[in-house]
C-alpha cells in the first residue's frame, strides 16, 4: 500500500472522528440552547 493511500486512510479515520465530534458537540449545544435559551416572553 502506498504512503499516499495510508495517509488517505488515516485522513478518513481522523476526518470522520472530527466531523462527528463537531456535529455531536453542536447537537448537544443546540439541545441545551433549546432548553435554556428561551425568549423573554416564553419565560
Amino acid at each position, binding site marked *: 500500500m*502506498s*504512503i*499516499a*493511500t495510508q*495517509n*488517505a*486512510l*488515516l*485522513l*478518513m479515520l*481522523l*476526518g*470522520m472522528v*472530527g*466531523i*462527528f*465530534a*463537531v*456535529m*455531536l*458537540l*453542536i*447537537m448537544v*449545544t*443546540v*439541545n441545551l*440552547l*433549546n432548553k435554556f*435559551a*428561551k*425568549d423573554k416572553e*416564553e419565560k
Partner: protein
Amino acid sequence: MDILQHFSFLWDSLLFFVTGDGWKNLVMLAVGGLLIYLALAKDFEPSLLMPMGLGAIIVNLPFSGAIGEAADGSQGIIEWLFKVGIEASEALPLLLFIGIGAMIDFGPLLSNPKMFLFGGAAQFGIFLTVAAATLFGFDFKDAAAIGVIGAADGPTAILVANVLETPLLPAIMVAAYSYMALVPIIQPFAIKLVTTKKERMIRMTYNPKSVSRRTRILFPIVVTVIAGLIAPKSVSLVGFLMFGNLLRECLKLDNLSQTAQTALANLITIVLGLSISASMKAEKFVDLNTVIVMGLGLAAFVFDTIAGVLFAKFLNLFLPAGKKFNPMVGGAGISAFPMSARVIQKMALKEDNQNHLLMHAVGANVAGQIGSVVAGGIILTVVPKLLGA
C-alpha cells in the same frame, strides 16, 4: 497595409489551432459551448456554468488578451480576477458563503437536532474518494482536493483545492458544479441501490418544536467557536457562513441580510464563474486526469449519498417501530441545498403519496451544509500535518 495586417492576425489564429497543441484549445472551445448549453438548455446551475462556459471560450481563443501579461506589465482581466479573488485570498468563495449563510433557515435543523448526525455521516464519501484517488496514482494532496468534490459544495471545493495548490483545480471546479446540478439524477440512483421499497415508505412524523430567537442568534456563534476549536482551518469557511446567518437571524440588520442574499451573492457568482475560467486553459485542462477527476467526483457524490442512507439504516437498528428514520433522509445530509431535500421529498411521495419528508430532509440538508464546510476545514487542517508541512 492595415487590412493585410488584420488578415495576418486572423491567419495566425487559425494556424494556431492546427499546429502543436492548438487542437486542445479547440476542444476547450467545445467544452465552453457544452457548459453554456447545459446551463441554458438543461438548466444545470446556469448562474455558474454559463459564466464558466463563456470564460472558457474567452481564455482559450488564440492569443487571448483576457489572460497572460501584456508588454506593459498589465494582466489580462480574467487572470487578474483569478489571482486576486481566488488564488491570493480565496475572497470570492468566502464572500459567497456570507450570502449562502444569509439564505439558509436553520430552523428545521434546530427544532430537530438529531439531523446533525446525517450532516456528518454523509461526508464519508469525501474521505472514501480520497482513498480511491490515491489508488489511481494521484498524490495525497491532489487526492484530498478531488475528494472534496463530494462535499457537493462548490465554494468549499474551490477553496480547498486552491489552498492545497493542486493543478487539478479547474477539473475539480467543473466537476463540483456539474454534479451539483445532477443531484436529481445521481441521488435517486444511489438511494435505490441500498434501500428497499419498504424502507423508502417509512413514515416519519414531524412535530416541530418552536425555536427561540436567542437560540437562532447564539447558534451561528456557537458553531463558529466549536468548529474553529476542533478544526482551526475551517474557521474562515464556517465563520463566513455563520456571519451571513447571524445577519439573517439577528433581525436588526435586515438591509444587510437582504443585500447578502441578493446583491452580494449575485455579484460574487458572476465574478466567480468568470474567474474560475482562468484556470480552464487548454494546456492544463485537456488531460486524461480531468476525465479521471470527473469520474471520481461522480463516485464521491454516490458514496456520500449511500453513506448517509446506510447510517440512517444503522440507527434504525436501535430505534423502536414508529421512531425509525426513513433512510432516504440520511441521503439528504449532503450540502446541495435545497436540491437534495426536494429529491428526497419527491422520492418519498412517489412511493407513498401521503409520506411528507420534506422538513426532515431539509433539516438533514442544512446539517450537510455545515458538515461539508467542517469536512473541508478538517482536510485543510489534517492534510498538511500528515505531510509534515
